[in-house]
């Protein structure tokens, strides 16, 4: 099972990887801390699961390379890219913010899945709120993975 994790926060990235490893006994294959890296990965191969954060930088941060753009809806780029490639790699949004912005409006995570379908015509398995302080996200992620 090939898993891509799109996440720029090291700690959250480790936390998600550890959980996946524990639950599915598989290691996350690729980690992309920026949109451009994520798009490179999905252009080169298909994944059985993609975990997507929402607010991520456009490009990798390199010394002396200037600041990449900070995209609050960078995760949507992955969904749209998959759609334009005609792919249906299963995606789960795992974000620390309780809302997702779509076409200039904020939607609570509970409505985001349907709204993503409605406004972007993209499918996601679930939109999960990640928090270091609770294990709730683990239950939600586990439930979403059962749909795979």
């Amino acid at each position, binding site marked *: 099972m090939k898993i891509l994790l799109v996440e*720029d*926060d*090291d*700690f*959250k990235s*480790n*936390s998600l990887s550890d959980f996946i490893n524990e639950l599915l006994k598989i290691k996350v294959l690729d980690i992309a801390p920026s*949109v*451009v890296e994520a*798009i490179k990965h999905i*252009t080169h191969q298909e994944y059985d699961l993609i975990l997507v954060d*929402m*607010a991520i*930088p*456009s*490009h*990798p*941060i*390199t*010394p*002396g*390379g*200037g*600041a*990449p*753009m*900070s*995209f*609050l*809806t960078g995760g*949507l*780029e992955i969904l*749209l*890219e998959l*759609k*334009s490639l005609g792919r249906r790699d299963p995606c789960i949004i795992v*974000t*620390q*913010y*309780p809302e997702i*912005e*779509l*076409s*200039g*409006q*904020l939607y609570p995570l509970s409505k985001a899945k349907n709204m993503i379908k409605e*406004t*972007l*015509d*993209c499918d996601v398995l679930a939109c999960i709120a990640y928090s*270091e302080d609770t294990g709730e996200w683990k239950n939600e992620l586990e439930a979403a993975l059962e749909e795979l």
Partner: protein
Amino acid sequence: MREDLTTINKSTTNKISLKSLLSQSANTNDLKKLRLQTRNKIRAIFTAKIAKAIKIYTELRKRSSAKELVLVDSILRLDTTPNDGFIPELFPSDFQCGENYHRVDTISYLKQAEIIELLLEKYSEKLDKFLNLLGALNFNIVQSNYKDADTDIEGIYQISGYSHFLLRKACYLRELAPSNIALESSDRIIDEAHDNGRIIPSSLVQCYQEQQDFLSMKKSIMNIADRGKSNKFTRDISRLTFHPFARDKHDFNELIQSNLQSSLIDAIIILKVNNRHFNLSSEKYPRLVNLFGRLQAQSPSLDQIIYPYFSLNYENIEWMFYKHSSAWLENDELIAYREVQDHLFDDPNSAYFTLTETIISNAKSWFEDVSLEKLADDSPLTKSPSSNLQKITTSGYITRSSAFNFILHTTEGMTTVSESSLFKIMGKTRDLARTVNVEYLTKLSVNSNSKLAQIVCYLLIARKTRNEADNHQLRRLIQNITIEKFDGNLVMFVKGLSEKSFEVAEYAYDVCTEDFIAKLYHIISSATEITETRAELHQWMGEVSNNKNYIDRARNLLIDHQINKTRNELDDNRIFVDVARFSEWLNDEVVRDLNVVLSSIDRTAESSDIVDPQLMQIIQKSYERFCSDNIFGMASYLGRRIRHGTFKGHLYSSVVSSLESEYGAFLRDPVIEPIWDHWKTLYATIIYEIIRERLHVNSLSKPKGLLNPTINASKPKTEIVVRCAQNLLKDFNEHRNNQNSVQLLTEYCWRLAEVDLRNINSYLKGQKATLIQNELLSNIKNHNHDIDGDYAKDFIRDLNHLINDKLLAMYSWFKKPVSISPKASLSLLYKAVVAEVKDTFENFDADTNFEDSDDIELVGGAYHVLYDAFYVVVYNAAKHGKPNGNVLRNFRVEYDERQNSKVVRITISSEIRDNDSEQEINSRLSISPTDDIENAQLSEDRSGIRKLHHLERTDNYFSVERITCENRKVIVVLTYALEISI
């Protein structure tokens, strides 16, 4: 209802009591004509308090016939003593620019038309005179007899008082007449209108000016916040310039009422304008319909109206004609023209109109048999018999844009257009991104076989919608074609577009902001390329438009890039503002009021340090939104990228996990473990407190929020606000429009934000000791346990380093992004120059170390001038100076009496070679009158000093103070005048 009216009905000087009113026989007769019940109600109105009086009057309006109401109104109008303020004057002697009357519930347009029909009979003599004078005024305007026209305006005022109609004529006359012609009456009317109100006259005056963007103003006026009856009059009257057509019957009811409140003349005109949709019959309204015809008879033909424009120096005649056209709303042909443009050259999703069958049918009768292919050539666009209208619409942009939207609407996008025609149309239309129907344009795009045509469609679609999928589709199309045909080079793609249509390429240039370029993931693989590509695009635009500003912007970006390389640090900027959306918000919500305020402030305020309170309020409103908006403001980035992003992971989790993995055994020591657990708990609590309370925009619910959205919170902010106000005024007075206001407000909001961002970083720095919790750590260090004491010391040292590093990394999160607003440290600028010169002269070196605290930061776009100046001086020192000699520099900010401003004074000295003579060098450094300064930048040999003088000529702020050789050193002293010292 307003209870505090102080300016009501100034014209009514004959305030009379009920008793005296009834003593006048005419009024007694009027009263007698009314039913007893109605008479009693009138008496009650006289004696009741205002709220009760309005209630009675509203009931009367509902139940009485038009005939009765005319009588009731005429009686009530005579006496304003007890209940002044709800029966407006029909021919007011004061201009009605505000909510001067209590607004009563509206009645149907049919009943109002009946009332007006009766009033026409009553005031027929006055209206006859008005019509005669109107004919004379119109004749004099089209004949360019401006002085005579001004006299006619005075005559009309004397006969029928003030009206918005008359104000439009006065403003039109003022706009057309040369400024050296004195138009006493028109100027007086305009001035008095300004004295009586704000939005209504200022929006009209500015609409008629060339530089003001019509659609932005229209959107702003049509979207004035709906405060119900309390601002209904202002909303209705200010829209007359922009959209006089009623959306439906209800809108028409209100519109007539507001216009009748303004004057009887305005009510007649609005009825005429809208009669195309409401068909008042001549059987039922003979006088009114007859008057419509007589108004037409007093109006020149469209040919005559347009004729004077051919001798005026307007860049685009139709554009100005359209902007001015509300001055001719008595003219049938003009109304037909406005009906088409007002509905088809506007956002079809606007709430204030729907494209009804009548409108589309009227448009169909007005347009020639148009198709998209025909729009590309110079075929006539309208069936209007006016040859001058044919001329200006064929060469103009408005009607062609409306025709484009009309075709899309009537075909629902199920039509085709060739790539070449589409490119041609794009060069002959304007504002399609704001006026097009997205659904239909998407269909047109799907029907097109040409990738470039699809890109053109999506350039418009993506700009209009906020839908991420549309934006993605545009980027996909651009990237595909750029990779296939332009070797993945975006600039080459834009240049390729310009070969087909400069307008499309220019549009693409506008779309390709840093933000957009950053999302072209298949062709832009690094953050560096974002800057480089944008700089190249600026460079291209500068070259093709011959506009130095673009070249300067390109230069600045490349210098930023050079500075970044010199710093060689990780730049993890996390605070942004979506400038495009903020600008949109400013245009919709602020510019209208800003116009009003700027046009009312005295010119001398440009240099005043006291900010007009209303201007201050506008800056405050802008900055508050800049900080607090949860979609485009700093708050959204603070929330999503930091608070709910990586703050805790960065500062807590990674620190703790790193230490536990390195010092696992040590921390599991039974004595150490509880102390460590306690430390972690406190550490987490401190971090939570920062996240929960501090990393917020300051508000009542978050009083400890570090981002303070108020503009007077500190002295540096106050100083920035003063400069902001001065610059807004200066720019407005210079250009007589506010085209640059949005950009200026955005720039100053960033400057204000920088003060807060510095505060956040100071706060974080200040938290270092609290986070480290030395007291607890000393318990670990001092504890006598079995483990080697050095181990404890290493642990504490690493913990200190880790927290310090994390805090240092976080400082870069809270910075103003350089790409958004140019800013440069003078020391870094110098350092970057030295690094660049070292690329050529490997052995050259100069001290570039500096202390942050001594640094001077230059804000604004002009630092490329200093970069270039540094380059000349340092390059010369490297090339001609003493090998391994000292090169020293000194920067300081000081007051310069000669320039009457603060300047940054730059002194760079370099040692000369041992075998060089000072005299010889001084002669090389001097400039003679015959030296070619103008072409200094073009030559390579011995041109350095001339280049410095050339910079001085091209930038008024830059000055070469001294270039001499003395004491075996070349000393160069330069100054740059500052707007503000940082």
